[in-house]
């Protein structure tokens, strides 16, 4: 029965029934954990960050506006927790997404940045994907977060604006700058890709 209800409906029910919150956690655990790791939180700490995020979500349920998407709200809280963790640890950690996920992320971004004609074979594609993924880890957080949300989490500009509390125009500008910076870093490391 829970699967037929929207996230917003379940969130409203969770105010009175604690068990309903478990439904939300179940729906979002994997996604949010992957997002936290993509931002650059260490694997061992990602679990703690997510746990803390869920607790904050539960405590702040009364402040959640059910007319807005629950997903954006959940991502915003999780994003803030992850950023707070990274600030405490001073340096962003290497991404610790599982290997198959790493490859998928890199390939997805490679497809975004490169023209197909320039990538000869599968091996070369995988090498380029790895280089892209490594380079993203080195980007400043403000570029990394928008790239992850847009191209890996596949959120719209408006949804990213809700998560990061920025206007849509600012998000669009930051995504463009993030891509330019990524391409510049890739060129500097010897990887030349032609934009589609």
């Amino acid at each position: 029965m829970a699967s037929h209800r929207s996230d917003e409906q379940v969130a409203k029910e969770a105010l009175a029934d604690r068990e309903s919150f478990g439904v939300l956690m179940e729906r979002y655990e994997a996604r949010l954990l992957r997002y936290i790791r993509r931002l650059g939180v260490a694997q061992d700490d990602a679990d703690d960050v997510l746990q803390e995020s869920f607790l904050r979500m539960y405590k702040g349920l009364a402040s959640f506006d059910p007319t807005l998407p629950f997903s954006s709200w959940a991502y915003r809280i999780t994003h803030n927790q992850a950023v707070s963790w990274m600030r405490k640890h001073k340096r962003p950690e290497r991404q610790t997404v599982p290997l198959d996920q790493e490859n998928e992320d890199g390939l997805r971004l490679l497809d975004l940045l490169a023209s197909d004609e320039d990538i000869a074979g599968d091996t070369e594609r995988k090498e380029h994907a790895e280089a892209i993924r490594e380079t993203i880890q080195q980007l400043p957080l403000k570029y990394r977060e928008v790239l992850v949300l847009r191209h890996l989490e596949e959120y719209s500009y408006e949804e990213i604006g809700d998560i990061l509390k920025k206007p849509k125009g600012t998000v669009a500008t930051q995504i463009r700058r993030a891509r330019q910076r990524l391409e510049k870093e890739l060129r500097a490391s010897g990887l030349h890709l032609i934009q589609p």
Partner: protein
Amino acid sequence: MGDISRRVQEQLNEQNLQPTSKGMVQMRRWGVLFGVILVLVLASFLAGVAFDEAYDSHPDTIGRIAESPWHAIGLAVPWGAVFAFLLVAAVGGLAIRHLPKGYRVARLLLVAVTIALPLGVGIFLAFVGLTAPFEKGARTAIPPYRAMQELREDSLEAPEKGVLVGVPEGKPNEEHLLIVRDPYGRVWIVNVEDVEPLPRYVQEQRPARFLGEATYEEETDEEGEFEAEVVLPVRAFHGLHGRGQEPPEIE
């Protein structure tokens, strides 16, 4: 249910956690705002008291600042300006808070304007000379300045008003009479009732200027009586006669 979800659910049940009510969230926000404003108001009161105390001990230094082009900053800001600033800050803060999400540049600009605008206007007005009436008003709010101003006005009508320079000896008696020896060796019995509590430099028996009126029961070369209306350190002279001028002879 995943591991993390299960752990969180267990924690919620064991600790019987509940969502924070909307009312409590609002109360916290307004409580923080109220606390910030209260701290600012208390700080401004303390600053005013500290300035008053500082002036009492070093009026010459404060007076030099007051006579420089930086009047608007150097003088004690009248309480009205402090509260006006707080009001602008509060309104600016609310405006910043209710801006739509993002607009970081707009927020920063609004913060900068909220802080800089009252200060900038004050400095500008001081430079173009429009703050003179307010400075006069501020000066008259400070007790020593106010007393000097009154004495200056009185001295124009009563030439016998003068200045006694000397070293206090001992402490005033129960009739508020203090013994002061001037540079010529004369002993003066100075009535200090109107200038008590005495500044620290007088209590420490350091040289002081007593502005007031000389009165004699009998005329002698070795003794006199004086009624003090203002007391200043020896170097402080600007308020009555202006910088660079010598004090008048004691009559």
